[in-house]
């Protein structure tokens, strides 16, 4: 009997939407790698859960193969700044390992997670050794590093690598898996069922990896 009661209470609490939440997310990558797709999916999911949202993007010159980032803030309360304060990011999601380093100063030392692909995008001469980059990431207390390219290829196409990374970040987003998946379906809806399936599988692969690597 007491068990049932407990469940009921939980349901009531959810219905009232009394749950307060705030996630400050830095999305990192190189121009053209699809970080805005990740931002759009998280944004759509957040809106479907009636959360507030601010998302600062980079347009213009840096898009040409330079480093790009997006500040994505979701919260149950009104959000003031379009920019996340330094040391305030709950999450850094990077689709490129060296780009993950660029925002170390943004990460919350007490609770922040870093999720990064380990697949370098080398368009500069002095690109560091991957090993040296990973050494820096692995010093952090909370991280997930994954071979997103390989995992995406296993699901059917390397082009879904960004969605693999999103899947790996999904346990830390504070959003329902179902809202994220609905957003993927909506976003890729026009492009056909094959692409939806590919991206959902890519999402699951990333999520599974993430859960297993930190259990």
């Amino acid at each position: 009997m007491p068990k049932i009661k407990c469940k009921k209470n939980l349901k009531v609490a959810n219905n009232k939407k009394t749950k307060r939440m705030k996630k400050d997310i830095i999305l990192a990558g190189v121009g053209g790698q699809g970080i805005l797709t990740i931002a759009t999916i998280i944004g759509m999911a957040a809106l479907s859960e009636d959360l507030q949202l601010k998302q600062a993007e980079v347009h213009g010159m840096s898009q040409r193969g330079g480093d790009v980032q997006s500040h994505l803030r979701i919260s149950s309360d009104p959000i003031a700044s379009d920019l996340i304060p330094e040391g305030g990011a709950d999450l850094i999601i990077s689709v490129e390992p060296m780009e993950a380093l660029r925002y170390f100063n943004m990460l919350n030392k007490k609770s922040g997670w870093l999720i990064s692909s380990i697949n370098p995008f080398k368009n500069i001469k002095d690109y560091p050794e991957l090993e040296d980059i990973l050494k820096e990431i692995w010093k952090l207390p909370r991280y997930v590093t994954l071979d997103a390219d390989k995992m995406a290829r296993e699901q059917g196409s390397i082009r879904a690598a960004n969605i693999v990374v999103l899947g790996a970040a999904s346990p830390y987003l504070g959003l329902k898996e179902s809202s994220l998946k609905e957003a993927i379906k909506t976003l890729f809806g026009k492009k056909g069922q094959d692409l939806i399936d590919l991206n959902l599988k890519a999402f699951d692969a990333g999520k599974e990896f993430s859960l297993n690597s930190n259990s």
Partner: protein
Amino acid sequence: MKKLLLLGDEAIAQGAIDVGLSGVFAYPGTPSTEITEYIRASQEAKDKGIVAEWSANEKTAMETALGMSYAGKKAMVCMKHVGLNVAADAFMNAAITGSHGGLVVVSADDPSMHSSQNEQDSRFFGKFAQIPVLEPSNQQEAYDMTYYSFLLSEKLGTPVLMRITTRLAHSRSGVIRKEILPQNNLSLPSDLKQFVLLPSIARKQYNTLISKQRIFEQESTESGHNHFIEGKDKSMGIIACGISYNYLLENYTQQTIPYPVLKISQYPVEKTLVKKLYDEVESILILEEGYPILEELIRGLLDEGKKIKGRMDGTLPRTGELNPNYVAKALGMNYEEGYDIPKTLKARPPVLCDGCSHWDSYYALNEALEPYSKGRVLSDIGCYTLGALPPLNAINSCVDMGASITMAIGAAEAGLVPAVAVIGDSTFTHSGMTGLLDAVNRKVPITVMLLDNSTTAMTGGQDSPGFGHLESIIKGLGVEEEHIRIIKPLRRHHEENVAIIKEEISYNGVSVVIPRRECVQTLAKRMKLKHAKDKMQKESQSSK
């Protein structure tokens, strides 16, 4: 009503559509481009017959909008901050003619120069023209204030300047719409000499503008866009302009701000509000995104009053955009820092795309110039400006739209022969044509490399105004036909291209070499669209 998720730029666009806009005119420039793009893509705008066009440059756009205002309809003109320099002649004089239909000028500033050559503050231009300036702090305000600006413009018969900065332009948030108003009917000003700025009329009109200044100030307060927020701690008062207000709030998410705050989003600012704050506090902190304009005014030349903190005394950085952390420091607050950025990290500057025609053009130009000493290539603004960086190191200047040709003329006239100008197709029709006419008239020995990728590439591939008739423009300006050379910038044509460029460089007169190949980005977009269309056709055929 359902919230729309909009960029600051898009919120301005939607606000204009909803208040009854009839036309928007613009030249693309980061961070302003998305305003016009949004209206061009809007089905609602199409259904209403709203004119949304890219102009040859900001000046022609400004004048077109002024013409639409003359004809009684609401018109908007959008540009980046340096675009306002190009439009300045029309802009300054539109302040004197005044408006008839609502006229709103949007200038998007780029503090920290993310995609620009300077960080000039457009509020100065508003002050220079002595017209009202709006500076929204968030996306909802961007919508609301655009809506308001058109109504204000029609109420007071003046153009209104809307100033935003990169962060607001390119950040997305929820926006609630207002009542949708119809467009104006065609009508002419009651005084048909209002727009005739002959000295005698201009003097009268200028006096009218001056007499409105006090009304502009009162409007800033009465609109509610500038307002006072009480605070108990009188040791300091804070003036927060535009988006800097958000950075202030960010530092007090868990508590109310203890200090009195003056939130500023409209100029000119009325003295009484500032005086009220000044009188009740011991010191003032001024937060401005851009130049310390209010700060300079409040300090005055002698700066002998109460202690004032801001960008001028080092409390905040003198240059670049603000952020929550700079403001926290200015408030004397501590914040949890993140991790040190590892030294392993390397810079990743933007580069030309793989397969971009500019690579081949520059490889050929570099080789053709090998016999000469370095430093002979004056260039311009566009993707090809990236040719300044390694490995190309191909160009020696980038100043303003069109300056390549005219600077090459000056350098050649100083004795730097050969001198080469490198300019893109869209930049050429924006501001390069008149310079080329100078060169032809004076027979200055320069070679213009007109890199034709048939689009305005850097800002995302907008139409290039000279598309399809560049040669006839150049011929019409007087360049001899045999010295207009079209080449194909491809690796397999390299030797031939080098030879042609060498020939034209050695010609003692004006020559134009046009490397012509479509931008790889627009090509990819076009192909994608074509595939989608083909697929749709096939599907509809098979279903028959």
